[in-house]
């Protein structure tokens, strides 16, 4: 992205002074808003030395929060993956009425405030909610319990994989799948041998983004969690509790784990990004290179 763009010849580019002013402005803005906060996290996490840092991470509640965060992502990401593939398959490979409505609805969770994303489940499953009394009678806890956290996480990460796959699969068209069918492949053979290899990078990209959000979600989870230490605290929620208790070193220690996750995400994303772009370009220029009829 952005690389390989030739610098415009002088006649039509900006003067060097303007160029450097713009570059410095951009870098200062990004430095102030991105680099400084990132640095602050690690500096404060290590303020009292590496020993204190490690102890804060080894504490039982912190470990419980890490476990819950991993569990939540381990449920939410695969479910959204299956959904994303299924939705993209139906949308990209078939024509049907209401397709554009479906695409819009898939994007809906991105337009909803995280707090509202949590609220809707409270209204549905909470004690004052529709199903609350019935659930209470069955002794099933969803709100202020792990299922609620998982549901809210699924909601906020819902569109990531589908919206990554839909344009990619649309660009790839259906001819390769048709060819597989003509050659005698069954439905699953066609999917695993032809479709999946063609979309794997886009899929991975979606999974990376989905996972980052699933592990980092705060607002939605905060509403449904009930903040029970060691039980319904995810890592971001645990950060909040520690911070509000003025236990800054511990708060930033846990935060630093999440920040590392973010950095790994960015690195993986950049690594995958150009492969996705290549797959998409390949799909868009799928025809033979001679191209047009003579």
């Amino acid at each position, binding site marked *: 992205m952005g690389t390989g763009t030739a610098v415009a010849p002088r006649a039509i580019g900006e003067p060097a002074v303007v160029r450097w002013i713009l570059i410095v402005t951009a870098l200062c803005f990004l430095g102030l808003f991105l680099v400084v906060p990132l640095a602050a996290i690690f500096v404060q996490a290590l303020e009292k030395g590496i020993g204190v840092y490690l102890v804060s991470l080894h504490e039982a509640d912190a470990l419980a929060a890490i476990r819950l965060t991993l569990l939540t992502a381990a449920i939410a990401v695969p479910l959204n993956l299956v959904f994303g593939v299924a939705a993209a398959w139906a949308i990209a490979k078939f024509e049907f009425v209401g397709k554009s409505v479906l695409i819009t609805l898939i994007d809906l969770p991105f337009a909803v405030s995280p707090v509202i994303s949590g609220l809707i489940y409270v209204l549905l499953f909470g004690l004052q909610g529709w199903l609350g009394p019935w659930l209470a009678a069955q002794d099933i806890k969803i709100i202020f319990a792990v299922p609620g956290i998982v549901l809210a996480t699924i909601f906020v990460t819902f569109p990531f994989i589908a919206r990554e796959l839909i344009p990619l699969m649309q660009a790839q068209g259906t001819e390769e799948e048709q060819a*597989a069918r*003509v*050659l*005698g492949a069954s439905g699953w053979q066609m999917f695993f041998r032809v479709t999946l290899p063609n979309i794997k990078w886009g899929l991975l990209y979606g999974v990376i983004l989905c996972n980052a959000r699933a592990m980092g979600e705060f607002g939605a989870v905060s509403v449904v969690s009930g903040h029970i230490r060691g039980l319904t605290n995810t890592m971001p929620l645990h950060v909040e509790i520690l911070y509000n208790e003025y236990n800054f070193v511990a708060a930033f220690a846990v935060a630093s784990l999440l920040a590392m996750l973010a950095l790994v995400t960015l690195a993986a994303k950049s690594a995958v990004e150009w492969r996705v772009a290549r797959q998409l370009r390949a799909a868009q220029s799928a*025809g*033979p*290179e*001679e191209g047009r*009829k003579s």
Partner: protein
Amino acid sequence: MSIEVRKITKTFGSFVALNDVSLHVASGELVALLGPSGSGKTTLLRIIAGLEETDAGSGPILFHDEDVAGIDVRDRRVGFVFQHYALFRHMTVFENVAFGLRVRPRRVRPSRAAIREKVQQLLKLVQMDFMADRYPSQLSGGQRQRVALARALAVEPKVLLLDEPFGALDAKVRRELRRWLRRLHEEIQVTIVFVTHDQDEALELADRVVVMNQGKVEQIGSPDEVFHEPASEFVVNFLGHVNVFQGRLESGRLHFSGLTMDAPPRHGGSGAVRVFVRPHDWMVETRANGAPSLKATVCQINAAGPHARLRLITEYGEWIDVDMSHDRYHELALYTGAAVFLVPRDIKLFLDGSNGFAAYQAAREQMQRDARHLSPAGP
């Protein structure tokens, strides 16, 4: 393996792609479906393959007299070569060709060694054996085309169907591949049906040509038949450039553009007619020799190319295109502004109101739209 479709209709929404089409292809034959875009030729091919279903009420699709309409595409055992080849982009050439064998159920799947041998043999047949490890993106268009063919042949299809097989290649590669396909057909004796919009390709390659227009079959016949005995105005027009005149037929005599001559045999009726004369079917003289002829003036001369091409205008203001050999052109010593006398060597006539002209114009407009669509830089 023979193919027969009877009374097939296919609509997409309100668009009628095929309207009551019947066709019989004998075993081992090489047949071209020829027509402009939207004529239904590709749809017919896809229906034979099982990639599309016919509308309710259509007749059967018979392979060797057995109805295959209900048989799923993967069990029909047809070889299909897609217009843009549809090679699996993440597989090597070898893997592409092996695909059809590898996806077979375990009990009928050949051994790995057998697959390897078979694929290698096919790649040799299409002269691609030295490129087995390449990916499709590393191949030229003509090479992709041959891989697509090898892949289709790997499953030992009973019929081979090709959708615009050479459509996306440049003229030179196209000619080579045409010859090569013809040889291949002689070698493996499989029934082949291919779709094309290029009349030269159809006439050169096929045993029989099916000319299609607006979802209907206009004519089925050998290349000779469709070229020399076109069944409709559409066929005349589609098979190459032609001069058109309004004329009258009266008791066996034909009048057009100031010319009166005996009507060709089998044209006994009377009434308004359309007269078609191909550019190479004119005899050109600089002096009247007594025979009934048509007077015209030379407007443009283009002597570069295999023929000398002339554009003339008659005294009635009609344009006429004439092709002649360079020898003849030099013999006549023609120049812009020269007066000439034309006698048609061969003419086709169709009574006005007989099928075809409206269809021809519609198709011609469609082709012009396509041409614009295909070559944005073109006129």
